[in-house]
């Protein structure tokens, strides 16, 4: 079976259509003939070609010629001889024709063999720039025929091991029949006799293959079943198809948060909640009955459970002599495993936070690496056009989904580019800046107002303590906070309508920034209120439990308000907007929803120390939120009217999660562990000055234990308590970052230089083509002028090839 690419015979004349490189038999093989004729003619005519100079200068000089050769409609018309030369140029035949492929792979395998030799520079004397590397386009001084190249390739293949041969052949873009021929030729001279087993397969092999096929079908079915297990896979595809990738990024972020919470919850369950639940402490008094209010208030029945810090014992569990931490000697039972609860509490929380930090930083750098490439801030259009079709799709509805998705993506792309406005006058720009400044001032003022409100209200709450029957008043602070968090963004949105940004992406970023500042400042005030004021106010009570309950209440109120916001902001607004205002469905506000998610996650991280089961509450909350938001989206909202690409949004979301949110929570945790005195009535650290002391006590205990574990106290003294290692590590980190920045800068420079060279070479190519064309024209004219009868028939024959 011959490898022939069917090229349709074009009805247009040869003069205006370049022959395809697939017409290999018609390719003009070398410059030699042309050059011979030319030099002959030049000698006869005494015509000197002007000296060549690279690039635009010479192009300008030949501009006159260039104009003369414009055919009808301004399209350049080349002679057939020029076209044949063009068709055989390497840039047009890389991987295109069989000869070129074979030659390319021959060169590649030769290069593999001759790694030590450097490329020859003497051939490149004409180039404008010395080459950096010569790839597999070595300019053979002898242009070999395809057959000879093929023979050479086969010889090269014979030099390789069988596995390498197969690997090379597999990657070649030839038909399978061709590859089989090459393989056969490469294999036979090696003398390996072909295993002759003529005829059909025997019965047992048939059985084997039948089993293999059946297993294969089963495997395929299992795989598709597994695919269905991936949570919300189809739902996410539907959302992406109908609303675009920006709305989808919100739901993907929700899924990511779910993963983070699960990651946080597992060590807590395994090392803190589990052991304590297995060895419950002696109950202190009777537990109050369960009323429904606990779900909202977090106190009552929930108070003395694994949910809160106060439940955890400060002794070593499972040790039959009740002794405090500083190790009175008692003989443990042979089968029991003593479990030091305070140590476990401290270390597990620390380890969980450390793992979360690593995962966050890794996923942030990963998504940053995916959305940013050196020297390629553009390229999205090409990728969308060429790579967006998923060829695995086999169902009609799925393909319709893909078409919708691609249509939305392409529209988003173009909308981003359609923001070219004319340059504004100085006056307009100044006005714009003034307006911007004013709006920012108003927003910051609102933030300040909200902060002061929260502060004064919290001070008021401390002054007036809550009695047992007025438990509903405990919800006052969360209510105020949530109301402010709900109302202020609408105010910001109203103010943002005054300033008119050019790009919708910038608008979203500014809105996110403002909302984030508000939320973080309010949380900061609350943290001060808890760790600064509540600790003093609740000296003789279990203040950690109180803080844990406050955070639980905040989370629950946050969830309730999100539901209310979805209900009124989306459902009711849609009804009003469709019936009364006739404006159509409202848009899905991505920025606000994402910040709500980040806010909820910050609360979880703040509260983990005081209520270890808070991540479980958050997981439940997120699960419910997904379904509520999805239903509301499908029913009430429409795709953003000004679609914008969310390719960088996921990076932004993760960065926001890492920097203000997680960092703040980590600072809060560190301060609580290192500086605050734990309450003396409850919890695993009741007898200590700070929570960190549990670790110190243990290290001292180890020091006394003997020389066997002396390295641990040593590490503690010289690496953890000493500040020098931290400076060293920071310095190393800074050095690594600096090096990477320099490398990226260098690469970017090289890429821009090379791009410039390529466009110069492109201009050179155009210039040379025109020169060639000019030469041929002159030749034809002179030949035609000289002898009409003698020369025309041969010229006709050559042209008619």
């Amino acid at each position: 079976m011959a490898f022939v690419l069917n090229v349709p015979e074009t009805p247009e004349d040869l003069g205006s259509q370049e022959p395809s490189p697939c017409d290999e038999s018609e390719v003009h093989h070398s410059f030699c003939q042309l050059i011979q004729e030319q030099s002959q003619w030049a000698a006869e005519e005494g015509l000197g070609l002007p000296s060549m100079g690279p690039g635009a200068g010479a192009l300008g000089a030949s501009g006159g010629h260039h104009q003369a050769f414009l055919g009808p409609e301004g399209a350049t018309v080349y002679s057939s001889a020029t076209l044949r030369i063009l068709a055989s140029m390497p840039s047009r035949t890389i991987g295109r024709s069989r000869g070129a492929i074979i030659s390319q792979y021959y060169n590649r395998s030769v290069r593999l063999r001759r790694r030590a030799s450097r490329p020859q520079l003497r051939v490149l004397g004409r180039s404008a720039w010395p080459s950096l590397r010569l790839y597999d386009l070595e300019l053979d001084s002898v242009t070999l025929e395809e057959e000879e190249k093929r023979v050479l390739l086969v010889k090269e293949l014979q030099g390789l091991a069988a596995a390498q041969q197969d690997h090379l052949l597999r990657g070649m873009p030839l038909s399978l029949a061709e590859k089989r021929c090459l393989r056969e030729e490469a294999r036979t001279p090696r003398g390996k006799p072909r295993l002759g087993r003529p005829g059909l397969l025997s019965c047992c092999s048939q059985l084997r293959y039948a089993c293999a096929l059946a297993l294969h079908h089963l495997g395929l079915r299992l795989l598709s079943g597994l695919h269905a297990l991936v949570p919300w896979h189809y739902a996410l595809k539907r959302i992406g198809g109908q609303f675009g990738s920006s709305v989808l990024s919100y739901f993907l972020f929700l899924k990511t948060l779910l993963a983070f919470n699960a990651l946080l919850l597992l060590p807590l369950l395994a090392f803190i909640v589990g052991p304590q639940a297995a060895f419950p402490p002696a109950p202190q008094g009777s537990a109050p009955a369960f009323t429904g209010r606990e779900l909202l208030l977090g106190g009552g029945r929930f108070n003395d459970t694994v949910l809160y810090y106060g439940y955890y014992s400060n002794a070593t569990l499972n040790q039959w002599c009740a002794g405090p931490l500083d190790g009175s000697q008692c003989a443990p039972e042979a089968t029991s495993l003593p479990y030091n609860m305070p140590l476990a509490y401290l270390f597990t929380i620390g380890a969980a936070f450390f793992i979360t930090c690593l995962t966050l930083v890794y996923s942030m750098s990963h998504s940053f690496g995916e959305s940013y490439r050196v020297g390629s801030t553009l390229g999205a259009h090409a990728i969308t056009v060429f790579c967006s079709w998923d060829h695995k799709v086999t169902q009609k509805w799925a393909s319709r989904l893909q078409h919708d998705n691609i249509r939305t993506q392409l529209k988003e792309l173009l909308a981003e580019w359609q923001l070219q406005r004319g340059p504004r006058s100085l006056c307009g720009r100044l006005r714009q800046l003034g307006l911007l400044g004013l709006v920012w001032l108003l927003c910051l003022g609102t933030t300040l107002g909200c902060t002061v409100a929260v502060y004064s209200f919290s001070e008021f709450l401390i002054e007036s303590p809550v009695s047992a029957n007025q438990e509903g008043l405990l919800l006052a602070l969360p209510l105020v906070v949530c109301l402010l968090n709900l109302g202020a963004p609408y105010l910001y949105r109203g103010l943002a309508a005054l300033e008119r940004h050019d790009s919708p992406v910038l608008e979203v970023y500014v809105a996110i920034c403002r909302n984030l500042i508000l939320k973080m400042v309010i949380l900061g005030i609350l943290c001060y209120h808890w760790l600064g004021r509540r600790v003093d106010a609740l000296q003789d009570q279990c203040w950690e439990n109180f803080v844990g309950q406050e955070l639980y209440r905040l989370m629950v109120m946050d969830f309730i308000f999100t539901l209310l916001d979805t209900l009124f902001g989306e459902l009711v607004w849609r009804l009003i907007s469709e019936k009364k205002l006739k404006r159509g469905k409202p848009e899905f506000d991505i920025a606000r929803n994402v910040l709500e998610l980040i806010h909820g996650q910050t609360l979880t991280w703040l509260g983990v120390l005081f209520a270890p089961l808070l991540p479980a509450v958050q997981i439940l909350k997120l699960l419910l939120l997904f379904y509520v938001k999805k239903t509301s989206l499908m029913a009430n909202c429409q795709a953003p009217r000004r679609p914008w690409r969310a390719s960088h949004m996921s990076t932004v979301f993760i960065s926001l999660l890492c920097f203000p949110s997680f960092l703040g929570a980590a600072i809060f945790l560190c301060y609580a562990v290192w500086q605050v005195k734990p309450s003396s009535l409850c919890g695993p650290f009741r007898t200590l000055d700070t929570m960190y002391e549990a670790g110190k006590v243990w290290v001292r205990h180890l020091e006394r234990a003997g020389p066997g574990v002396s390295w641990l106290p040593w590490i503690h003294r010289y690496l953890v308590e000493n500040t020098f290692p931290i400076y060293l590590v920071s310095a190393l980190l800074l050095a690594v970052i600096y090096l990477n920045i320099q490398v990226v800068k260098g690469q970017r420079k090289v890429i821009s230089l090379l791009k410039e060279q390529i466009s110069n070479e492109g201009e050179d190519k155009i210039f040379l083509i025109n020169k060639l064309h000019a030469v041929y024209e002159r030749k034809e004219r002179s030949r035609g002028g000289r002898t009409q009868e003698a020369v025309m028939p041969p010229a006709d024959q050559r042209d008619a090839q």
Partner: protein
Amino acid sequence: MGQCLRYQIHWEDLEEYQALTFLTRNEILCIHDTFLKLCPPGKYYKEATLTTDQVSSLPALRVNPFRDRICRVFSHNDVFSFEDVLGMASVFSEQACPSLKVEYAFRIYDFNENGFIDEEDLQRIVLRLLNSNDVSEDLLTDLTNHVLDESDLDNDNMLSFSEFEHAMAKAPDFMNTAGSNSICILVMLKVASRSLWVGLGELQMGHD
């Protein structure tokens, strides 16, 4: 029926196909099965051919907007032999190396088969992707201009294979490349046009 001629495939042939394609043995047998079901019964599989329509109606290609181009690229004389079908499956399999995929993707996208992806090709690609013929002219021209602005490095209004490969290098899931590889591809592109200089040099010096 094809029952008695179910496994016409020879052991050595199976080994060879496995070595030369990216398919596993089970996948080859599966394709063999499907091929025999579609081709006229009683014929030896190596001589049987399928028409383009038959291959286009396979479940894998039925809803693909580029199925006619795919069939065109992988078939010979408008028919598919068994090895052609295997070759096609190999290129589309998950284990295939990205360079092979890029190679064939270029051929598939080259609608007018002139060795380049020019504006006409780009417009047809977009029309196929959107699956409708009533797309505004502005959208089409805008999009083709953007793609050419981004990927056409030597300003000839067409994408050669090297330029296409370079553009695909930026797609994170298409080819696993870092920034440094794009430099290599750029060098390749530059070197490609060097041959013209040599040719002209010979022309000027009257070199034989």
